[in-house]
């Protein structure tokens, strides 16, 4: 793995530390794919791509050509690891819903204090569709949202109660941003870690939900 060089990579680097040796992990398109570069060297993680691969590799390096008909979940040509398996979408979503995926990592418009996730449409504004996200958050053992702590206008992405159409109900376990790691527990959202560059006060001010602050808040690194 390499060293993170910007906020997005910092988030990816912390997120990848949730993975355990032997895990099958699904990385959503966009920022979550950055996790590939930050999987700790001492563990072996297999990447699930919901379009039909277990054992997805990296995008082709310069001078390398991806095999025909091998694309990742964003439709981009990709390599496969030695030992990879390909299969059809029906089987793929059986594996996903069936609980065979250890962790799913996704982006979000909003996450709320009860672990509700909104990331598939904003009425009147944006509608990309949910793709496989609803099935992933239903089936994966661990759901991690990777996100900037606030949106471009400075509004918190972690809110008390989202009014947006949900992707999943009570499904998010961890919210990881450039400022904090928030663990959603039955008691409420716990501020478990903060970035070395911030303070608990700054995180609280930039969060739209009431956080549980433990006596000791850990450091993300």
């Amino acid at each position, binding site marked *: 793995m390499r060293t993170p060089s910007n906020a997005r990579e910092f988030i990816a680097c912390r997120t990848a530390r949730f993975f355990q040796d032997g895990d099958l992990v699904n990385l959503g398109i966009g920022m979550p794919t950055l996790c590939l570069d930050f999987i700790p060297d001492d563990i072996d993680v297999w990447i699930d791509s919901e379009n039909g691969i277990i054992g997805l590799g990296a995008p082709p390096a310069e001078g390398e050509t991806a095999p025909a008909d091998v694309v990742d979940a964003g439709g981009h040509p990709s390599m496969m690891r030695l030992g990879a398996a390909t299969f059809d*979408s029906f089987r793929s*979503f059986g594996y*996903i819903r069936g609980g065979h995926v250890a962790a799913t990592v996704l982006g979000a418009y909003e996450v709320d204090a009860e672990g509700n996730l909104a990331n598939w449409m904003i009425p009147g504004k944006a509608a990309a569709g949910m793709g496989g996200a609803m099935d992933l958050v239903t089936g994966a053992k661990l759901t991690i949202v990777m996100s900037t702590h606030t949106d471009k206008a400075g509004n918190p992405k972690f809110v008390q109660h989202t009014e947006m159409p*949900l992707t999943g109900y*009570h499904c998010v376990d961890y919210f990881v941003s450039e400022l904090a790691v928030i663990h959603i527990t039955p008691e409420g959202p716990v501020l478990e870690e903060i970035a070395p560059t911030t303070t608990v006060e700054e995180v609280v001010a930039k969060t739209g939900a009431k956080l549980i602050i433990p006596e000791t808040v850990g450091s993300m690194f």
Partner: protein
Amino acid sequence: MAKNKVVTVAEAMEHCFDGMTVMLPGFVNCGVPHTLIDGLMEAGITNLNVISNNTSVKGQGIGKLVHGDRISHITCSHIGSNVETMEKFTKGEINITFVPQGSLCEKARAGGAGIGGILTPTGIHTPMEEGKQLLEWDDEKGEFKFVQASDPQKGRRYILELPLRADVALIHAYKADKLGNVVYNHTARNFNQGFATAADFVIVEAEHIVEVGEIGPNEVMTPGALVDLIVQAETED
């Protein structure tokens, strides 16, 4: 002597018609039946009710049908890879029913396998519940009961998703023999293998058409018995 199912694209299009429900496989731009979609464009077939995972990318594959206003309705899980579909949807120029990708699979699987419907936990307490029946498992009684979305949840809850079938499925294969036994390649398999089971009429475009016997029984991913016609796929190289 076994029947040779290989025809021209124009001959295959005689089995397609305005207003038909058509399954179009593909994940973004991979495994899309490009040659057959070009055939639909050429033949002027319109008012299509499309079942697909997404709408390819702008101006390609299913994107050609979107651009040409050939589609009256789409059932799909994602349109984010095609900016033109997103624009048309935001402006209200195209009708879309969103279905979670795994539910789309199971609905088509049910349609192709003679199953009356499926129960999925996907989409519970989301807008996917709207207009659908919900069931909850009662552990004490050992039975399902129908519930309303507003009822407090006591047990495992599921959405009853109904089967999907189409008049025609257009399938992209890597290799097909002249009987229609099919092999798909890597992630181009995606929705092809499943959709080939769920339509009244199945047309396969294959990159390579081979003699019967060249694809061994162990290799066959879709048996020729399910395939009605085969055309030669035009490949880029």
